[in-house]
Structures are given as C-alpha cells and as structure tokens.
C-alpha cells in the first residue's frame, strides 16, 4: 500500500468518523522562509472538526514555524490557511485583516506555549489569567468572571483557593494547566499546542496528557499538537504528520503511521523510539 493510499484513506475515514460537511482548517501550499533558510515548505493538509493532529519531526524540521504560520503569529510567504469561521464560513486567515485574525486568536483559537511564561501573565493572579479572555470579549460582571475562572481552575485540577495566587507561585505542571484553562475558557474550536509537555517531569507529563485527553474529548476540540514525543502523539492524536527539513514526508492515521511507517525517515523515528 502506498502512502498516497493512506492519505486518502485517512481523510475519508476522518470525514466518516466525524460526519462533518467540511474541514475546520484547510492548509494549502504553505511555505515560510527565513531569508534563504527554509522554515517550512509546501505544506498542505485538512483538519476536520473534532480531529487532533500531531506534528512530529526532529529539531529544526519546521514544526514551530508551521504552527506559528497557522496560528497567525507568523506571516507565511506563500500558501493559504482557510478556517471555517462562525460568521463567514471559510476565510483565508493569511489575508484577512489583522483585527479579524486577532479576534480569532482570542475566541475560536487557543495557543498553548511550550513555556507557560510565554502564555501567561506572570504578574497577574490565576483568576485574572483565566478571566482575561472573557474580559477581552466583553465580560463585565466580576462575579460571573470569577465563577467561571473558579470552574476552570477546577477542571484543570487547580484548587479554588489558589485563584488569587500568581503563577510565579505555581509549579511547572500547574502553570501549564493554568495556561490550558486560560485558553479554553472561551470555548475555542481549534487549539494549537507547541510541545505542551516539554520540559516537565515524566509523571507530571502523564497527568497533563491525561487531562488534555479528557478535555479534548469532552469539549470535542480540534487540535494541532507539535511534539517530538511519540508517546504524546500515540495518546492524543488521531492523525499524524511527520516533518523533515521543513517538508511533510508522511501523513496518516496515527496508529498506521506508527505501526507501519512508509517513509524511511519515519521508520527511523519510530525504531529509535522503540529502542528506548
């Protein structure tokens, strides 16, 4: 069976699985260069509603570059990123106006950074961090904001009596969970995550992954997770994209790619994990 077959199969499969009429995100020919250096090149894929896609690849393969282009943090040189907006259906987020893109960034999209300090306001209390997105979209009732912040802290297993503490007083795992609460409180439809478990102890990683998996299933979130940890992918991702030197070398259902890798590089990646 060819990789091409897998690609078609997995796309058909996800269409059937989620029963959605059209993808949530359609990426076409996306490239980003840093001067002469290739960040990522000619990346195309569809993400369906409720689907979680993992992006793996060695350091420097372009994972973060791609994610930042998708989330509107970086302007790609070529390509389109079509997102199924609530108001106007499929819109190219590359060419839409900056206010529209930033509005998506604090409503329908969420971005979980590898380093929680990049995604949190470290000088603002946990409650304020969670409440910020609510206030950004017009919430003006303190009691309501606080109630929703308390609820979300609970959902990420942070005790309610820590609501007025700053993240500087939190452990690495707690910070990461706080970052997730802060992002999910407005009910986004698409979550971008860049190495969400990177830099955490193994036991802390496991707990965070469990939590993420629960939230993703429960909220029916679509997500794109960049990682170089195949265990993360195995646990969270329905589909997997393998990158090398800025290009996608393999793309398919997670289990199929991991159990029967087609591309030589993926085979290497998988076997190196199996040896561990």
């Amino acid at each position, binding site marked *: 069976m060819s990789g091409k077959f897998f690609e078609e199969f997995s796309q058909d499969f996800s269409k059937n699985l989620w029963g959605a009429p059209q993808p949530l995100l359609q990426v076409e020919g996306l490239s980003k260069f840093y001067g002469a250096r290739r960040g990522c090149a000619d990346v195309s894929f569809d993400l369906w509603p409720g689907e979680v896609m993992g992006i793996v690849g060695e350091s420097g393969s372009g994972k973060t570059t791609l994610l930042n282009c998708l989330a509107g943090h970086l302007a790609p040189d070529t390509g389109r990123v079509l997102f199924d907006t609530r108001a106007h259906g499929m819109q190219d987020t590359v060419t839409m106006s900056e206010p529209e893109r930033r509005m998506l960034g604090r409503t329908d999209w969420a971005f979980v950074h590898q380093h929680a300090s990049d995604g949190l306001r470290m*000088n*603002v209390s946990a409650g*304020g961090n969670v409440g910020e997105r609510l206030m950004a*979209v017009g919430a*003006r*009732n*303190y009691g309501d904001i*606080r109630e929703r912040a308390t609820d979300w802290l609970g959902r990420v297993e942070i005790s309610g009596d820590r609501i007025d503490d700053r993240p500087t007083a939190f452990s690495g795992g707690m910070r990461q969970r706080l970052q997730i609460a802060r992002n999910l409180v407005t009910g986004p439809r698409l979550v971008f995550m860049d190495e969400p478990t990177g830099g955490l102890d193994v036991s802390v990683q496991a707990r965070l992954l469990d939590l993420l998996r629960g939230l993703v299933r429960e909220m029916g979130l679509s997500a794109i997770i960049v990682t170089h940890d195949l265990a993360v992918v195995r646990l969270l991702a329905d589909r997997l994209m393998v990158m090398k030197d800025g290009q996608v070398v393999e793309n398919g259902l997670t289990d199929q790619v991991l159990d029967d890798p087609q591309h030589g590089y993926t085979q290497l990646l998988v076997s190196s994990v199996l040896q561990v």
Partner: protein
Amino acid sequence: MTTQTAEAGQSAYNFAYLDEQTKRMIRRAILKGLAVPGYQVPFASREMPMPYGWGTGGVQVSAATLTPEDCFKVIDQGADDTTNAVSIRKFFERTAQVETTTRTGEATVIQTRHRIPEEPLREDQVLVYQVPIPEPLRFLEPSEVETRKMHALEEYGLMHVKLYEDIARHGAISTAYAYPVKVEGRYVMDPSPIPKFDNPKLEMAAIQLFGAGREQRIYALPPYTQVVSLDFEDHPFDPSKAEHPCDLCGAEDSYLDEVITDDAGSRMFVCSDTDYCLARRDAGHEGAQGARA
C-alpha cells in the same frame, strides 16, 4: 493660541521660551489630539530648563498654548503655592510676561498636576495637565509595540484585568488615582494622576490638554467630550467622597486633604483646592475649625 512671532533681531528671546517652529510642532500635535480625543499623539519633546518630574510636558503644552493676553494659573496637588507651582508660574511670568493668578475664575490657561479645580471651568478656559505616564496599559503590558496595537484595535480587555486584580486583592476597585477612562466610546485614556474623585469632572466645558514630556506624548479632550470611568456591572465606579465637610470652609462637595495640625496628632480635613476654599471663606462660609485657621 499665540499669533505673535519672534520680534525681528531678538533671536535670543522668544515668547514663552520655545521657538516658533517648536511651538507649531506642538500645536499640530495638540490639534491632532483634539481631533482624535483620547489618542496619544507622539511629539518631539524638547529639553526644558527644569527636570522631567517637574512637568516638562505640561510646560511645553502651556508654552504652545499661551498668548500675551492670557492669564495663567498653576496648580500643584490643588495648591498654587508649592515650589513646583511657583517655579512654573515664575517661568512663564519671565518668559512670556503673561499675567498670572491664583483665582480659577480669572485664569484662561491653567496648568495642573494631580487635581481638577472644584469650580466648574468655562468654554473660554484651557486646562493643561502634567502627565508622568500617559499609557494606561503600561502596568500590564510593557511592550510599546503591543500597547499601540491594542489601542489601534480597541483591545482593552487588559484594562479590566487590572480592575479585576484590584477587586480580587482588596475586595473593591482600589485604584484611587489615574483611574482609567474610555473616551467617546473609543480610546482608553489615563487621566493623569488626578484622584478618581475628579473623574466625573473630566466631562467639562473647557479644553483639556495632556502633556507627557519624558514619554513624548500629547493627548486631549475637546469640550463636552464623553468620558466614562471603567468598571464592572457588580462593582460600579465610585468617585468616593470622604464623609466629611471641609473644616475651614464647610464645603461638602470638595476633595479634602487630611492635615496634621500639631504634635499631638490632631488632624483636620481641608479642601485640597486652596483657591476654592479661600473663595468660600471670603464669601462668608465657615467650617468646624474655620475660626482657628
């Protein structure tokens, strides 16, 4: 504003210290500020013969605003007789030979730090504020690029995060000075460190000009501009007036300073606006300790 230009041959002297070209540049910034109420207009702040903390932004705006016919008043925390107020008043007496006054009603241009006069201002008056930090978002967002973008795109959620933090920590919005406002439903503005008691007065008949010297920003409120203090539905804005009349003039509507009157720690509450207090006493009003003062 001035129509007078430097007199021929007198290159060392110019009306109100600044050269005409600089004043024109500042006036352009002021006009732009008036055209876009609450928007911070960058301007090329000049070195003034006084330290930044003394209100060089306000001084430059006053210099560009004063005409020879103007009558100038300077308020520092409500008083006309602090070192800062006296120096600025003297500066313009010497460099512009304008008439000066301590009477709010007589002044046509009033430069102020920390207060708005109690006496309502008129359409023919200009109030110039000395501003230390013009950016209301600075407290939570250190990046200038980002705060500019937030203003441009009206992304003001962060302002409420600051108020949220206040309530979470103190049970109420504890911001008492420089209380943020929204201007004409568009720009969020720092009214400079006036007490929030003065916020309701920001909607007034006079032109209000704000100058920040070190930060090189000018912003403005045209007469009768809508100015709304930010708050939450369940924690509405409260200008918080002390439950106390002035001990000298008996005023019940003014902002009061607490003054310690002797070594035994006796204290009294007096109007922070000294001109207002004096005018009331001249008119025969008397507070609880009025006779003693």
